[in-house]
């Protein structure tokens, strides 16, 4: 297996969305690392959302999502994102929380360049600030992008005010051999 960085995007001023477009189709899997914070001062964390290929018809199906944290005890098992164009892929810190605490989310897409099969998606996201009792949360999900179209772009946004300056996105291509 070999992994190659495709691009690194550092957001230099607050923005509503970040789109990674024209993704090369020469790998077997994609790994996207997101270090993100919402620019709003909510104090309760925010959702991170992603779209694939900016589709306008339902195409993302989460089979299962698991979420736990200071505000969710015991861990919950939920079904969501059923047949949606946008998927809730993680939880992020916001400007009402510990300064400069960015959340970390990883997204893995298998067979992303296939034009004959659906794609499987796994997301992993954890937020931790400086106090375990103030705010912490973990989120994992696995699901399907129900499309035979290759994944050529991914768009990220938040459920709050937007993506804060200093947020960074890395996208890697993985080859199986």
């Amino acid at each position, binding site marked *: 297996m070999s992994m190659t960085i495709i691009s690194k995007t550092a957001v230099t001023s607050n923005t509503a969305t970040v789109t990674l*477009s024209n993704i090369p189709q020469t790998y077997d899997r994609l790994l996207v690392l997101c270090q993100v914070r919402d620019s709003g001062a909510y104090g309760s964390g925010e*959702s991170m959302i992603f779209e694939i290929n900016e589709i306008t018809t339902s195409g993302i199906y989460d089979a299962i999502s698991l979420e736990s944290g200071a505000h969710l005890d015991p861990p919950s098992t939920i079904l969501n994102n059923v047949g949606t164009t946008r998927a809730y892929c993680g939880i992020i810190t916001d400007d009402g929380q510990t300064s400069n605490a960015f959340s970390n989310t990883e997204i893995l897409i298998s067979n992303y360049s296939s034009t004959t099969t659906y794609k499987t998606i796994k997301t992993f996201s954890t937020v931790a600030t400086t106090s375990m009792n103030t705010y912490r949360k973990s989120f994992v999900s696995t699901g399907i992008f129900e499309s035979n179209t290759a994944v050529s772009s991914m768009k990220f946004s938040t459920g709050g005010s937007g993506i804060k300056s200093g947020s960074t996105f890395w996208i890697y291509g993985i080859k199986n051999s």
Partner: protein
Amino acid sequence: MSETLTKVVVDCATGQQQVLPLTAEEIADLEAARAQAEADRLAAEEAAAEAAAAKASGIAKLLALGLTEAEANALVK
């Protein structure tokens, strides 16, 4: 004056990065996405809280029947 909403678009093949203003359609779309995401999240948290409350209530009733705490927890695990 309200802040102009922007989007960052990265061409992964060339590395070129552009910062562009959102169109009115994109702003409406974004607001809809945010509302849906927040509704989904609140619904999930509400469901989790309800499940936790039901579990605690169930354990309390089992304890009242004479089960030990370990037995009650094992049954509702």
